[in-house]
């Protein structure tokens, strides 16, 4: 295997991943809150380096709608958005998954208005949790690049045929220049054969997509969708294995760092996991039995892997980058609690919300989160969850 390692802004690397995937159609809203991802793709298409239709539209609602049409005729379809843009797509996201259209979308995770804040957190994607998309979270530029390639393979697999979101933290990843291995076109082609959508819209073989489903059939449709999304996990695991065998970088739904014999585990998603590693190293140096869990696959939720990863810990501290207002805390913490509730052997789950609207959480602050989490596990807290770093 040959690959070039270049220093490149992560957004631009994602555009190159889309190019290497030989996308046929990219539709996107080209201005704020857009990233350099589609800006670069527009340039690649305009320069004749990528033979694809680039459809600039007047809103993200239209962008996702155009993607539906493109995917429905069997085109390999890509788009990217962020923050408010993802929310404007919201209703169309459900249509993409329910119609089983293998669209791939990079989402630069950002905070939501009001107040206006374009910086990073997970509020946008958490609001799309139940849209039926496969949702992967990347921790760095390479993971994002690799998972964009994997996303096409997963989405287009005949056993899956579902849209995939590859989430990367706004600014902390999208605007970062990182050294990224860019594989050769031939290697990507071997990993990612052309899309063979089984029942595309075709005048010679007419079908109806997204038709009317009265009460007597809607429940059956939703059950089929649930079974389909849950079963996609096996294909995702298989894809990550094959990607690893070919390119040398392996991914899994739940990754552990120094978690062996750890009494206390910290769980995070996205780019914060790399910062948290520094905190874990430092706490380990202090003799504390602390480890890190990185949740990479959010939908389908990796129940077995999470239960296995945390079963020997006494305390599990979860840092969410989104709030479920008036609810039990962050969505990740809630789901992990729910996944562990029926287990006989399980850690006490302590929830924090932090890193909102682009606020950094430094390695020292991760240490504070861990120490406060341990304290709460011993003394309890009057709150369902705590917002870390908030000025009282």
């Amino acid at each position, binding site marked *: 295997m040959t690959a070039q390692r270049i220093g490149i802004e992560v957004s631009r690397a994602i555009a190159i991943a889309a190019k290497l995937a030989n996308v046929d159609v990219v539709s996107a809203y080209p201005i704020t809150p857009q990233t350099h991802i589609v800006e670069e793709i527009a340039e690649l298409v305009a320069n004749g380096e990528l033979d694809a239709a680039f459809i600039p539209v007047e809103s993200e609602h239209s962008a996702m709608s155009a993607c539906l049409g493109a995917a429905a005729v069997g085109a390999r379809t890509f788009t990217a958005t962020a923050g408010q843009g993802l929310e404007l797509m919201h209703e169309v996201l459900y249509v993409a998954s329910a119609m089983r259209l293998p669209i791939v979308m990079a989402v630069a995770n950002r905070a939501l208005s009001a107040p206006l804040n374009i910086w990073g957190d997970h509020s946008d994607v958490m609001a799309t949790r139940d849209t039926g998309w496969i949702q992967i979270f990347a921790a760095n530029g390479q993971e994002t690049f690799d998972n964009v390639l994997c996303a096409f393979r997963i989405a287009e697999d005949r056993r899956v045929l579902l849209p995939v979101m590859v989430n990367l933290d706004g600014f902390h990843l999208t605007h970062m220049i990182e050294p990224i291995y860019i594989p050769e076109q031939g290697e990507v082609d071997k990993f990612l054969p052309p899309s063979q959508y089984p029942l595309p819209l075709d005048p010679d073989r007419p079908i109806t997509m997204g038709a009317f489903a009265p009460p*007597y059939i809607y429940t*059956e449709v939703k059950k089929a969708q649930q079974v389909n999304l849950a079963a996609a996990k096996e294909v995702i695991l298989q894809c990550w294995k094959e990607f690893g065998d070919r390119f040398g970088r392996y991914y899994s739904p739940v990754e552990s760092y120094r978690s062996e014999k750890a009494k206390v585990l910290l769980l995070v998603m996205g780019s914060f996991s790399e910062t948290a590693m520094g905190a874990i190293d430092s706490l380990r140096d202090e003799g504390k039995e602390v480890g890190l869990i990185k949740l990479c696959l959010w939908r389908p939720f990796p129940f077995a892997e999470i239960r296995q990863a945390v079963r020997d810990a006494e305390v599990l501290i979860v840092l969410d980058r989104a709030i479920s207002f008036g609810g039990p805390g962050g969505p990740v913490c809630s789901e992990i609690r729910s996944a562990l509730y029926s287990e006989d052997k399980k850690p006490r789950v302590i929830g924090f919300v932090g890193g909102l609207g682009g606020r950094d959480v430094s390695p020292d602050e991760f240490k504070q989160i861990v120490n406060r989490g341990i304290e709460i596990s011993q003394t309890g807290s009057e709150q369902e969850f705590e917002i870390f770093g908030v000025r009282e």
Partner: protein
Amino acid sequence: MTKPEDELAWKDLEIGSIITEPGNASQYQTGGWRTQRPVIDTSKCIKCGLCAIFCPEGCRRQTAEGHFDANLFYCKGCGICACECWTQAITMVGEEE
């Protein structure tokens, strides 16, 4: 399709619940939505056909006698035919009556 639609199990559905046989919307009994049905007084009917032209379901067909009957399998009871009829030959009658 081998089974009637209301007997299909989730495993019987096509990918994305697509419909592979054109025209199966005709199997859907929109008449089930109706609370009122149109009743025609043939002595007032001038057989102009406006009721059939305005019917949003297209469910009125001319009979051998020349007036237009609503197919109650599809008629939603919207009352547009009764509203448009020049001679007020059509009245809407509650389904419970």
